[in-house]
């Protein structure tokens, strides 16, 4: 195992981690402020990816597609919030899970109906194609590096938004005491719609960026959604900082587990058994991580009590 290969895997883990953060940030904000579990967050990710693919195919520009993905996901999010989600804030978690499960069915089948079952493909923009040499030999995709950069920028932007702006103050106040900020004259309905649209836009952004590496297809959102849930549960639901740490932890654990575990088992058993045991264990690793975190700290790393 060479150092370059290890660096490449660590970078892959970081790339997965920052994208999970962009997904999880919206999810955890929506939960923190509105107390809502949104299973349909993965659908917004898919909406972003499809919008990007469709616009990029029509105009030939990835950047227009990226802008379209943000806009499409934000607008879809706002509409969904106004039509459906708004009625769910006062309901129990079971109703929220089911209603947003229903939204997944509606979005998935609706998208299949519009775009068909065949995956769409997005090309990496020319300026970001190519590779960057790694220290110790080997090379790494420039586009993936750009994703890591974009994710870190989004994280920095979110921390500034939450910590330094008026909207951020209202969001934090909303987490602490809804009735009070409504009494102070903040239009709580509008605030909720904005938070939901912001979360949706982030999900759409992640969808467009990841859709370029993978394929854009119906059902792409749910595996990411479940990973994002693992992230926010590890980090503590409602905490942006927790989501960031949790996302990096999950990204790195998952990627390095898949890379290192088969090699580690290879030292004690034959190669095909080691691959089977190693990859089976690696695919369960992040869930084991989550279980361990919850057993030690039932509220997540940065969460308050359950």
């Amino acid at each position, binding site marked *: 195992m060479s150092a370059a290969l290890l660096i490449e895997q660590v970078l892959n883990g970081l790339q997965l981690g920052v994208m999970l953060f962009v997904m999880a940030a919206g999810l955890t904000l929506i*939960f923190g402020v509105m107390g809502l*579990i949104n299973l349909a967050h993965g659908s917004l990710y898919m909406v972003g990816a499809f919008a990007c693919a469709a616009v990029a195919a029509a105009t030939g520009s990835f950047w227009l597609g990226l802008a379209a993905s943000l806009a499409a996901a934000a607008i879809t999010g706002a509409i969904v919030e106004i039509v459906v989600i708004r009625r769910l804030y006062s309901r129990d978690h079971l109703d929220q899970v089911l209603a947003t499960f*229903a939204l997944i069915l509606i979005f998935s089948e609706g998208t299949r*109906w519009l775009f068909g079952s065949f995956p769409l493909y997005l090309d990496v923009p020319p300026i970001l194609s190519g590779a960057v040499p790694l220290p110790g030999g080997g090379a790494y995709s420039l586009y993936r590096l750009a994703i890591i950069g974009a994710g870190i920028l989004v994280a920095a932007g979110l921390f500034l938004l939450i910590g330094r702006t008026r909207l951020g103050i209202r969001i934090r106040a909303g987490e602490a005491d809804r009735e009070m900020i409504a009494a102070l004259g903040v239009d709580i309905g509008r605030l909720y719609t904005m938070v939901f649209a912001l979360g949706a836009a982030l999900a759409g952004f992640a969808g467009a960026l990841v859709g370029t590496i993978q394929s854009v297809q119906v059902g792409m959102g749910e595996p990411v959604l*479940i990973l994002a849930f693992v992230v926010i549960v590890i980090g503590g639901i409602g905490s942006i900082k927790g989501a960031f740490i949790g996302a990096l932890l999950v990204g790195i654990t998952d990627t390095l587990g898949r890379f290192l575990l088969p090699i580690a088992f290879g030292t004690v058993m034959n190669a095909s058994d080691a691959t089977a045991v190693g990859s*089976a264990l690696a695919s369960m690793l992040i*869930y084991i991580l989550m279980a361990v975190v*919850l*057993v030690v700290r039932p509220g997540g790393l940065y969460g308050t009590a*359950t």
Partner: protein
Amino acid sequence: MLRETPVNIALVLLLLTVPVAASAMDEPFIVTLATKVAIFATAAVGLNIALGHGGLVSFGHAAFFGIGGYGAGILASHAQNYEPLMTWPFTVEGTQQMLIIWPVALLAGGIAALAIGALSLRTSGVYFIMITLAFAQMVFYFAVSWPAYGGEDGLPIYVRNSFPGLNTLRPLDFFAVAFVWFLAATLFSILLSRSRFGLALQGARQNVERVRAVGIDPYRLRLVAFTISGMITALAGALYADLNRFVSPSMLSWQTSGEIMVFIILGGVGRHFGPLAGAALFILLEYALGGVSEYWKFLLGVLLLLVVLFAHGGLIGVVTRRRHHG
């Protein structure tokens, strides 16, 4: 307005008469649909003990459904290939006898539910929903990446497992097996809910502090309920594997967890015959809308959304215009 009991009796009679009539008219497909309803309803009866009675919103019951299914599939595949399951320290042969497969499925589901429940019940609320989902995903990915029993491709059962005195390959015979299990599970759930244990469990859902105050430990109560719930769902999984003569990781997928929950909600949470009403409606919709449009799940989604938003008591609630008490 209709009362709940006649509606329930009518539902059960309908489930019984439709396949008998269909079998007489030589419509095996309808019998298979009814069998599917009975099996799904049994799985949902299991979940309903945790979710409806205990208030434990488990989003991971596909794990138990799939474990039961794999229990049946693995035993049958060893019997088909004449390979013992293990040879050391003693030899265990595979089997195609349902009478052996069922206890194994119940036991496997029970052990899994006990382990998952013991960890998950340390949390509550959203964390509980998420951690049960995560455990189910863990089992799912294990099944996908473990190559010994088919991995992603699943595991076929070439000949349906057998039950003494019945020809289980005849649709009506197999329906009878599933129907009896559904009745047994429902009856058990009714008796359970009226027992001291069931009352304490419902008490813990409504007001956990009071239950604690009378000296009952809600953790143990819920763990037992969760384990029983997982066992019943695992048994339904074993039947489902036999129905399809095929087990695949899709039985373990999170969509399956969601669907078992949907049966309960469509029927009405906490109602003893809600699972049957919900499963029947789901299968009917799949069959009726599936013929109309390839995108029937779109319509299912809209319907589910409307039920959640506007018809809180589920189907039985709408028919009887009665909200569930307690």
